[in-house]
């Protein structure tokens, strides 16, 4: 018996060491037949499951677009709901292939965390949600307030900077998940709930009486939200990055979910390059020639996804603002597909 168990332990040890350190994520995903995508635990507009367990949202569409580009099937995604404080560990350890979870792009996350941001899906900023009954009109009137915040976010640090910078005192109560934070705010434990403005609008919908709460006008930080991948796999980095760019470029080129088949037959050189009727740009990424039409057929272009999930066509009704295309007054800008 002793000898058998010894052999077993040796085998396990050998298996551990054999696990390759260098990542071949695209190949792994193809072999597995499924993309593993880290999302939030339920943030309407960005990633939230409905009563049948179908995930929808802007961040979810990015995952679906990647799956569509690889498998030509937007359903081949396994969504992994993660809290703010667990998300990076899940990415580092390889539990997920891509993290698409309203995550702010910062320098330290790009470097010491061992991750790369692949672009910006939503230009956001941090704001404050208060009860209207407090009669507060500006964040500068929040001296001595109690503030609820979700732990493990850039929000926590911006908050400290803002109150210190304005010489105001405050008390911070940090919770593990968004739901606990909102519940504490609702029960009156704090006067203010702070987070990214888009998230404030989304969480306000969940409150008992949304009309009793208001988002203050101050936006105290830059929060460019985007998907993340691990360091050390440039090919996978390119795939995720260009999937998002393809969505933005499709909007700029006027390609929509409806007209994608007609546009694919177009003679315009830029459309021919995008649809792979000229050249093999998709194959250079490790995908197929028709990758752009696969993406647009599955989730639509960036504007359609925005509108459906967070914009005018959704319950959130957030204006495009900064997220409008660069040639229409916003700052969404994708490099050309060529």
């Amino acid at each position: 018996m002793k000898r058998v168990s010894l052999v077993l332990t040796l085998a396990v040890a050998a298996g551990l060491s054999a696990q390759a350190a260098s990542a071949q994520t695209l190949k792994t995903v193809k072999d597995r037949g499924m993309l593993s995508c880290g999302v939030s635990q339920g943030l309407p507009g960005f990633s939230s499951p409905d009563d049948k367990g179908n995930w929808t949202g802007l961040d979810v569409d990015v995952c679906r677009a990647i799956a569509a580009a690889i498998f030509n099937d937007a359903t081949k995604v396994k969504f992994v709901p993660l809290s703010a404080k667990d998300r990076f560990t899940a990415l580092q350890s390889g539990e997920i292939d891509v993290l698409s979870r309203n995550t702010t792009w910062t320098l330290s996350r790009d470097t010491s965390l061992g991750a790369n941001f692949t672009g910006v899906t939503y230009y956001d900023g941090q704001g404050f949600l208060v009860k209207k009954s407090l009669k507060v009109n500006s964040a500068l009137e929040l001296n001595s307030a109690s503030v609820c915040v979700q732990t493990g976010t850039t929000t926590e640090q911006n908050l400290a900077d803002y109150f210190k910078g304005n010489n105001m005192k405050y008390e911070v109560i940090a919770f593990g998940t968004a739901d606990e934070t909102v519940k504490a705010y609702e029960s009156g434990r704090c006067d203010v709930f702070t987070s990214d403005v888009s998230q404030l609008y989304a969480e306000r919908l969940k409150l008992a009486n949304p009309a009793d709460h208001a988002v203050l006008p101050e936006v105290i930080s830059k929060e460019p939200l985007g998907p993340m991948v691990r360091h050390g796999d440039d090919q996978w980095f390119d795939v995720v990055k260009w999937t998002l760019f393809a969505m933005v470029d499709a909007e700029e080129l006027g390609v929509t979910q409806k007209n994608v088949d007609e546009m694919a037959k177009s003679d315009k050189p830029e459309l021919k390059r995008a649809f792979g009727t000229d050249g093999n740009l998709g194959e250079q990424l490790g995908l197929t020639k028709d990758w752009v039409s696969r993406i647009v057929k599955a989730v639509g272009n960036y504007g359609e996804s925005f509108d459906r999930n967070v914009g005018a066509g959704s319950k959130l009704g957030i204006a495009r603002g900064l997220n409008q295309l660069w040639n229409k007054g916003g700052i969404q800008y994708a490099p050309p597909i060529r």
Partner: protein
Amino acid sequence: MAIEPRKPPSQFIPKLQRALGGRAGWGGFVLQILFVAALAWIAYEIVANARANLQAQRITAGFGFLQNTAGFDVSQNLIPYTGSDTYTRVFLVGLLNTLLVSVIGIFFATIIGFLVALGRLSPNWLLSRIAGSYVELIRNLPPLFQILFWYLAVLAALPNPRQSISLFDIFYLNNRGLVIPKPIGEPGFEPFVVALVIAIVVSVGLWRYSRWQLFQHGKLIKVWPYALGLLIGLPLVAALIFGAPVIFEIPQLKGFNFAGGSRVIPEFVALTLALSTYTAAFIAEIVRAGILSVHSGQMEAGSSLGLQRGSVLRLIVIPQAMRVILPPLTNQYLNLTKNSSLAVAIGYPDLVSVFAGTTLSQTGQAIEIIGITMGVYLLISLVTSALMSFYGWRISRSLGP
């Protein structure tokens, strides 16, 4: 011709063989060496593999991050702390918060546990049924659920700061916590403390002297009037000579919250309540078992000496029961300390919340931070059980073999 007794053959080699290889002899020894070597190799492979993976992803490794600025605030800090302090400071703040809730939780859990156990053993039918239901209800509900219950129940019942429940306009209770006047040391503070310490030391000395007199000469000396006089008189004299030792800062409602005074946050109250009532249910059963393990003849013997039931328990039964109670009681203390890490669910800033939570997600150094946190819990547990073993050793020494 004298016959020299033959020297017995040296037992050294066979003894060594048995010690090293057990009954299997040298073969067993070789197998053991191989097994240890394999374990060491596995450990090495795990470390090397983790290191290679971290390097491939270019994740920073090492403990340098502890010197970096944290940049976030914490709602309860026992030592001065601001957002511009380092992660090392955050670690200390979290550790102290964990220790605070553990120590206070252990204190109350022990008291409640003993009371419930005595209640359950009481001849009073009603009392023993109430204590029994308490144990059965509390120990069968998950601790996280109880923490959330206390937190939400406590919060829901309390008014907002502007409608605080106040006592003499000095103490205020609201959903931000309990606000109490804060003592601030004045110039006469040090002599006051010195006088108090002297009074306590002398009182303890007096008490020991009276015990000694009682045991050696059978003389009963009443010491409590002297002790009381010392404890009140000496500090009073010091205060009269050196001036008022402390003034109290009265809290006042300013803006959203009270300014001035000290505050006990509701997260702390809820966590302490939940952990001490939960652990008390287990302690009650342990104490009950301990008391029942003492032979009933002891109780009868005590009664026949004319002692009250309470005195019999205190002087005869419980000292003997302690030997049985102590080891499982230590376990419960360790459980309470470890359960305090559930604090993160209600936003109490304990070690797991601020260090293994916020600090981890800001720096991304999971291996280092989880390693440190596990080491700290291990250390706290080992120190607790060492203290309890020492106490157990003293009891068994005083009770004899």
